[in-house]
């Protein structure tokens, strides 16, 4: 009897939590398809005749599409750089025995402890000096630098876990070190690349602090930074505001629903051992 009631309690807890998570999200979607007045007068009605005009209004605003494009550029290029550089570094640190290996590895690990926010003023001055302020390239370099320590850490672990016989067999077959990495080892560390990709790409897509500090030109702003502009522009036009929020959030939500296991594994990668 007692286990039955505790079972019931924990099941009720999960259901309550799921409702608490899903209701606000579904409510947001629903309100994005309704008229602004309806949101105020009868917020809890289902959008039976969806008002897609809210979405076309957001899209035809023009700036919104630019923000999305900018976020895709910044996130995409950062991701490519992070994956490429952490594969190269992870390969060397995970598979080669050389003097200084643990020194370099230790240095990379200290990079994981530095909070980027507190180094923001010197970064600002440095980017200004390099003429990279208000540019996507500057932002991409800062994101890459911030994510590389974790990326290298994860990739080194994956390269280390592969048996060393693979290398020797490939070398006997005449493969160069570069061929060994590109054709033989890289396919084997693909799960690691997926984890690094998710671990790095989501915070970059969602970030608004660095764009807030580094980007000034309206045509260069990213989506999360652009949302703050957008909210000032359409103040209390609820239907349009919710359509904008939905459009900013939906790409990630859809990806998450398809790849939830990889997302969970990727985003908790820094906190779980093994």
């Amino acid at each position: 009897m007692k286990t039955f009631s505790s079972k019931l309690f924990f099941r009720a807890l999960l259901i309550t939590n799921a409702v608490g998570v899903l209701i606000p999200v579904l409510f947001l979607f629903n309100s994005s398809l309704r008229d602004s007045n309806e949101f105020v007068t009868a917020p809890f009605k289902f959008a039976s005749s969806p008002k897609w005009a809210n979405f076309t209004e957001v899209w035809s605003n023009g700036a919104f599409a630019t923000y999305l494009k900018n976020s895709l550029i910044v996130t995409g290029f950062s991701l490519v750089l992070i994956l490429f550089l952490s594969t190269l570094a992870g390969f060397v640190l995970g598979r080669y025995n050389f003097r200084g290996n643990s020194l370099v590895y230790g240095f990379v690990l200290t990079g994981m402890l530095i909070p980027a926010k507190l180094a923001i003023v010197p970064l600002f001055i440095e980017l200004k000096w390099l003429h990279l302020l208000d540019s996507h390239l500057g932002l991409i370099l800062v994101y890459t630098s911030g994510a590389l320590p974790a990326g290298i850490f994860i990739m080194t672990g994956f390269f280390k876990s592969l048996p060393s016989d693979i290398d020797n067999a490939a070398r006997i077959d005449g493969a160069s070190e570069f061929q060994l990495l590109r054709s033989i080892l890289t396919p084997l560390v693909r799960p690691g690349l997926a984890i690094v990709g998710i671990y790095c790409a989501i915070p970059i897509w969602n970030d608004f602090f660095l764009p807030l500090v580094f980007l000034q030109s309206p045509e260069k702003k990213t989506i999360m930074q652009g949302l703050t502009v957008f909210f000032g522009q359409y103040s209390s036009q609820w239907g349009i505001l919710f359509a904008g929020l939905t459009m900013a959030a939906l790409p990630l939500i859809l990806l998450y629903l398809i790849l939830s296991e990889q997302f969970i594994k990727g985003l908790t990668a820094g906190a779980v051992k093994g």
Partner: protein
Amino acid sequence: MAAKGLKREQNKYIFLFLTPALLTIVAFTTIPALTTLSYAFFRWTGFHQEGFAGLDNFRRLFSFPFRDQFLMALRHNTLVFIGIFITQTALGILLAYALYRLKRGQRFFRTVTFLPVIFSLVVVGYMWQSFLDPYFGPINQLLNNLGLDFLAKPWLGSSTTALPTMAFINLWRWVGFPAIIFLSGLNAISTEYLEAARIDGATEGQVFRKIMFPLLAPSMTVISILTFIGAFEWFDIPFVLGGVSGNPAGATDTLALMFYRLAFGTADSGANEIGVGSALGVIIFSIVGIGAAVGSNVMRRREVEQ
């Protein structure tokens, strides 16, 4: 290939493959982090470094008008840490245990529990701000309709409720993270221990308290440290919901917001105080660094080997 030739080729790759990554980290993480420390010891006009200032910036931070702001922000960060540490850890463990015991449908509930973690804080912030709008928001309407008028208030606009409301929004967005970490901690516990205890007649409650909870210590260490760091660098939610001055009337000001104001000025006044701001940065970094180091040392001692 001769071993010597291989060694030479490897040396080439060590240099070629490590340099780009290391240069990027040094240029955009290490150098800025080290120079931020030095900035605290110089006088500044705008973004121009003037002369050596000794400890003047720290002295100014601890005198009028910065001292009061600093102490109030520090108090807010501390309160938020205590609040979210208790609620997120407790709810996280309960959810993890509930997921752990679930045989069917675990995947669905795990996906839903973790969903808000992928959301941008800007989206989460604006979503809740709209829901909590004192005049048009559905939450106050709902409370009124339910006859709970006394609960219908400007949650984010009143200085007594604004900070707890933001902490709640933080909880909504983040509790899935500790839940998943604790779940993987529970999954790592060998079932032999649990079976043995059950055979000896232990109830499920006893199994949890006496075996599972102590063995969750490593997850607890990680979550506590991350919560501590997050709470003392809390920026995004108060910035989106309360602006750079921590509205209403500084009731949601935090150390990171104050740091941002000192570094870049506010909307009304572009004047900045890089010296004092960097001194504050050094202090935030010390709080986070020392707190995390001491905390992880103390908590690691609680961890037992399986």
